[in-house]
């Protein structure tokens, strides 16, 4: 398990930004106090309750990509403000703040690399940036990643974590659902596989577009996945929601995802799926 060790090395520097300072971390789910080093060794998964802490895109890239193979694409794309949107703050000011607070320029990182030697195009979303919301830049980065996959005959993998479309870009953002769906439709016509991995949380227009368009759809355990958010549903029907509603296990039960996969097994499982689609060809 060569990649196992490499992934861990890649995790260490970024992990410090994600989790609070200190030697010990408290699990958001079960309250267990975990030694930070231990948590990082476990890919940010609580050893007691298996709660999956949020991962930064850079951490997910290290988890999945073979060392030294990752080449990021389109990192220079920046959002515009087509609506001149302002609420209590201007949209560009909110973007600047998100950049400062997260160190990310946008809500997705895309690129090409090798996963267990299979050449893939990978996109990883960052929920920490603007709630992982999809605006023009996310749409365009996914579109270009799919175009490149078609040029180079690669599979596409997207790790989703997103609250939906970015309302500060109005209808332009809603149309990104259409734009990326059209691209994935073209990818399918080119007979190239798309594997969608859903992580906590994936809701709104993201779920209602590319996240649910995978040839294979997987999810991390207990991730919130749905179309409408639980709060909106509760307000609409004025009832409490059933236990476990809209969690990965609920989606598996109802037939909307193929598998629930723990983070530690993610690379191995993806490699097995890629083997089915590509055989040894794309190595």
């Amino acid at each position: 398990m060569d990649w196992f060790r490499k992934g861990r090395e890649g995790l260490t520097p970024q992990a410090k930004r994600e989790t609070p300072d200190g030697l010990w971390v408290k699990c958001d789910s079960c309250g267990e106090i975990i030694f930070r080093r231990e948590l990082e060794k476990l890919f940010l998964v609580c050893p007691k309750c298996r709660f999956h802490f949020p991962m930064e895109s850079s951490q997910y890239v290290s988890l999945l990509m073979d060392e030294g193979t990752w080449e990021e694409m389109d990192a220079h794309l920046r959002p515009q403000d087509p609506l001149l949107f302002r609420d209590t703050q201007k949209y560009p000011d909110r973007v600047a703040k998100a950049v400062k607070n997260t160190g990310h320029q946008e809500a997705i990182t895309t690129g090409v690399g090798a996963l267990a030697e299979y050449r893939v195009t990978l996109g990883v979303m960052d929920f920490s940036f603007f709630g992982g919301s999809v605006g023009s830049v996310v749409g365009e980065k996914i579109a270009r990643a799919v175009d490149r996959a078609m040029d180079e005959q690669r599979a596409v993998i997207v790790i989703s974590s997103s609250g939906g479309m970015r309302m500060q870009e109005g209808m332009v953002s809603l149309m990104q659902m259409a734009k990326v769906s059209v691209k994935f439709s073209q990818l399918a016509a080119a007979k190239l596989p798309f594997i969608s991995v859903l992580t906590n949380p994936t809701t709104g227009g993201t779920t209602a577009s590319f996240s649910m368009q995978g040839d294979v759809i997987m999810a991390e355990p207990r991730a919130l996945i749905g179309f409408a958010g639980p709060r909106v549903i509760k307000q609409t029907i004025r009832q409490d929601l059933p236990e476990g509603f809209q969690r990965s296990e609920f989606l598996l039960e109802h037939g909307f995802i193929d598998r629930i996969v723990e983070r530690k097994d993610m690379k191995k499982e993806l490699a097995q799926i890629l083997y089915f689609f590509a055989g040894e060809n794309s190595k």
Partner: protein
Amino acid sequence: MANSATDFTSRTTAVDGKSILRDGYVLDFEKPIVEMEQKISEMKQIARASGMDSLTEEIRRMEKKAAKLKHETYRKLTRWQKVQMARHAQRPYTLDYISRVCSSWTELHGDRHFADDKAIVGGLARIDETPLVIIGHQKGRGTKENLLRNFGMPNPEGYRKALRLMKLAAGFQRPVVTFIDTPGAYPGIGAEERGQAEAIARNLFEMARLPIPIVTIVIGEGGSGGALAISIADRIFMLEHAIYSVISPEGCASILYRDASEAERAADALKLTASDLLSMKIIDGILEEPLAGAHRDVDKMAALIKKTILTTLKELQKSPQEELIRIRHEKYAKIGFWLE
């Protein structure tokens, strides 16, 4: 059970375009106009009954004034006023247009998996000599009909029925026209259990490569993903006072201002009107409404819709299949604003 092939109304009350005064559905900004119109009609009655010629001049003067006020009000509606127009209780719905535009209409029901969703209607239609499939959101009038139509908010089976009919159209090389008029896809427990997100995602994916012309007309409310799910199209038109938005103004206000009553501000920020969206090149054209709104003259509105459908389909049917799909792909690839 025999189903009339031209069952236009399909258990939904049709608008007659004149009932606004009678039924009392009047928006605030419509009130001065409606009051003036009522006064004019009263004066006409008096003039007729008493034969007072002296009133004729006064009536003519008031009619002129009313026309001017109408023009000033409806040609300069604010975004929030357009939201109200798009949701107007007297606004014509999908079946109101279908009954006026089509020479024959056979509604088809059910998604073949779970149920028939009455918030989306679809069927085989004929406009003059053109056979086509028409699909649209359907709202109801009054409490009983609205419960039946779920206020025009589809469940997954509505989108699956729509896709079934689109594939039927594609199989026989008939074009598809969709009418958009929904507050949004229904947010409920059953909807999530049956895969609301998957149903919408599947439609977007399949419509992207549907090998027939698709024309969309937003007739009222275009509510986010619930509207988009049947509107990946070669041409998208909006009625002048229709709206199309990523989120409802109320929803946006409750998130951004923590106050749903700030919806008016949110409507302005969201740029959700037909002219906003035409300037961002998200839609292809605006269909002018009769003065004071489509509900004041449904026949006139329907005539323009019919003409638009026929000329647009004629134009789209010139392209060979592969060309049509290639242009559709290019159109969507261009949407967005970013800096390199």
